[in-house]
């Protein structure tokens, strides 16, 4: 019997009823970025927390300046400054508990330092003496990640594993606006939502991916809107308002810890410096735009609020500045020492046990080094 002959037997029925799996409305972000500083909400903020944020912001700004200076002295191969974005870096990191994990992107040195990573070790990647300078398990900070967005699925896997083991650990994964276009961003969000993994995704939308503005990156109304399609809540926050970032991230962390699943947060901020010290930002943006954002500076915003409320006297300010200076001096001094590198380390951590092939190459380098050494000694004699 042919298909044509069967035709008469088939009676089309109306299509089965369709309903969305959940109402999209509660997942939609607010129309305006959430703000605390300068609003009613500020009254409820914990003064101790605000002061701590202030001290960390001041230290972070100084860190950015010092690291940038170190590139000029050739002590760092490159530095992607987060000047202007310190509120996101610091407030997000401080919203985590000690047992939680941070998955930073390459710009997020300050977040790593805010979690306790040694300021020098946090720069190892950028200095070039090794790829990762710190033990990721010590402060639960994954290695600074240079391929964009690829650390996001790691955060999902780790958070998922922790949950399977019965640990109430949350992972905070940071990514830039450009990174949201990568496939790994999509896959990570989708996995997190399907698995209800305790992950908080924080997009620092600083306006540019190197030179490419957000409008050329996405046609979405906001990056926070992307959450809806995955079935997770999206939040929009003023990324220069440290109190707001802290509150929104802390909320999402609590929600995740309680089993509520992931959240996507978009923090609206701005990169005041160029992409890195090697970038010429004048080719893609005008001074007036930068100046406008300088008027919305995260440190000034917080300082203003604290001063208005009588929470910041000259002493506290000076203490914060002095601590930042001390950190910078220590960073400068330790970064000005030449790292002692052992070339034989090249072979130490490729595999748990070197392959026979690596053993041969190790012996080759050993011989070369011995010859070089003997040669130098001979020359000195």
């Amino acid at each position: 019997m042919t298909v044509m002959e069967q035709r008469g037997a088939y009676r089309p029925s109306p299509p089965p009823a369709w309903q969305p799996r959940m109402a999209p409305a509660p997942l939609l972000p607010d129309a305006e970025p959430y703000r605390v500083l300068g609003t009613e909400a500020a009254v409820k903020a914990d003064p101790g927390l605000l002061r701590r944020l202030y001290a960390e912001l001041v230290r972070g700004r100084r860190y950015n300046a010092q690291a940038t200076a170190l590139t000029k002295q050739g002590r760092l191969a490159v530095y992607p400054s987060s000047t202007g974005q310190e509120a996101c870096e610091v407030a997000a990191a401080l919203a985590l508990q000690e047992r939680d994990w941070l998955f930073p992107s390459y710009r997020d040195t300050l977040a790593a330092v805010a979690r306790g990573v040694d300021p020098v070790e946090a720069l190892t990647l950028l200095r070039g003496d090794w790829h990762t300078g710190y033990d990721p398990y010590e402060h639960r900070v994954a290695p600074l990640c240079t391929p964009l967005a690829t650390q996001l699925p790691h955060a999902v896997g780790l958070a998922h594993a922790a949950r399977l083991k019965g640990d109430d650990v949350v992972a905070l994964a940071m990514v830039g606006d450009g990174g949201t276009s990568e496939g790994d961003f999509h896959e990570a969000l989708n996995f997190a939502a399907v698995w209800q993994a305790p992950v908080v995704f924080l997009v620092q939308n600083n306006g540019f991916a190197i030179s490419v503005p957000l409008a050329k990156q996405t046609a979405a109304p906001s990056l926070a809107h992307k959450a809806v399609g995955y079935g997770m809540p999206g939040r929009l926050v003023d990324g220069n308002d440290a109190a707001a970032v802290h509150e929104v991230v802390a909320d999402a962390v609590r929600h995740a810890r309680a089993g509520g699943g992931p959240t996507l947060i978009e923090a609206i901020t701005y990169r005041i410096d160029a992409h890195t010290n090697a970038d010429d930002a004048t080719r893609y943006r005008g001074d007036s735009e930068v100046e406008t954002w300088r008027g919305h500076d995260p440190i000034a915003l917080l300082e203003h609020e604290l001063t208005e409320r009588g929470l910041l006297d000259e002493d506290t300010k000076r203490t914060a500045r002095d601590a930042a200076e001390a950190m910078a001096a220590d960073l400068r001094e330790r970064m000005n020492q030449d790292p002692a590198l052992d070339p034989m380390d090249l072979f130490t951590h490729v595999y748990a046990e070197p392959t026979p092939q690596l053993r041969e190459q190790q012996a080759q380098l050993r011989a070369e080094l011995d010859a070089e050494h003997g040669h130098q000694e001979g020359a000195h004699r």
Partner: protein
Amino acid sequence: MTTVAVKPATMAQALTRALRDAMAADPSVHVMGEDVGTLGGVFRVTDGLAKEFGEDRCTDTPLAEAGILGTAVGMAMYGMRPVVEMQFDAFAYPAFEQLISHVSRMRNRTRGKMPLPITVRVPYGGGIGGVEHHSDSSEAYYMATPGLHVVTPATVADAYGLLRAAIASDDPVVFLEPKRLYWSKDSWNPDDPQSVEPIGRAVVRRSGRSATLITYGPSVPVCLEAAEAARDEGWDLEVVDLRSLVPFDDETVAASVRRTGRAVVVHESGGFGGPGGEIAARVTERCFHHLEAPVLRVAGFDLPYPPPMLERHHLPGVDRILDAVGRLQWEAES
């Protein structure tokens, strides 16, 4: 001495058994991938695991290879031993970014602090009449990535032993499963499957005196067949099954070639830039004075894997191997 009844089992069954035993032995072993749960994988290698160990330990993931491997990285960071299945060889390509940028180098970049014990199971190779993207041999890509072990069994016993060893390894292992051998049987004893082969040793599958066939995975049975056929022409061929491409067992290979003085490398993947070039070079470097002829290669052609109706012309078969063996009668003037 008790004699154990040796039942024939398929390679797929041995792999299933290896996964099951590994999961039973170690609660941190997690199997994940597309369709690995309820269905048991499109080749049924994960059959029954979700039922026995629960969906949290044998997980049907969303359809996203980078996501599968990327989340496995995070799970391994938290102390688990993920075993991920890539449904078919060419569908592993979306996961290359994770494999190359993270899986292979996390130990190195963290100076040994963060090793990733991940096993990536990749059904690979042709000969099953698959349509495009279902027959690739991608081992050269994996071999070219430092930090990965690359392993491929050719027998049922090795499928079990090597997979157990891969899962137990503290380093990432790309475990290449020759899919056309999934249904092959040999006398492995499923009731007593203890043998766990260390990764990195080749084995002489057939000893002979006049030349060595160096091969692995799906080409091993073909080479054994060729060796039988070559007897009629007076060739006594030795067949070396590499089992592990990384690390590479130079010793076993070189010892064989020094004995025989002649060698042919046989594999399905393309010859240009393929594993055979590396192997031939290594053999030449080690055995130059023992060689009576150049090391030859019998490989797939250098083309995208052909459509199923033409694949038999592409795959190295007995005749092409015998032809190469004939060419080992190297004449000085040629």
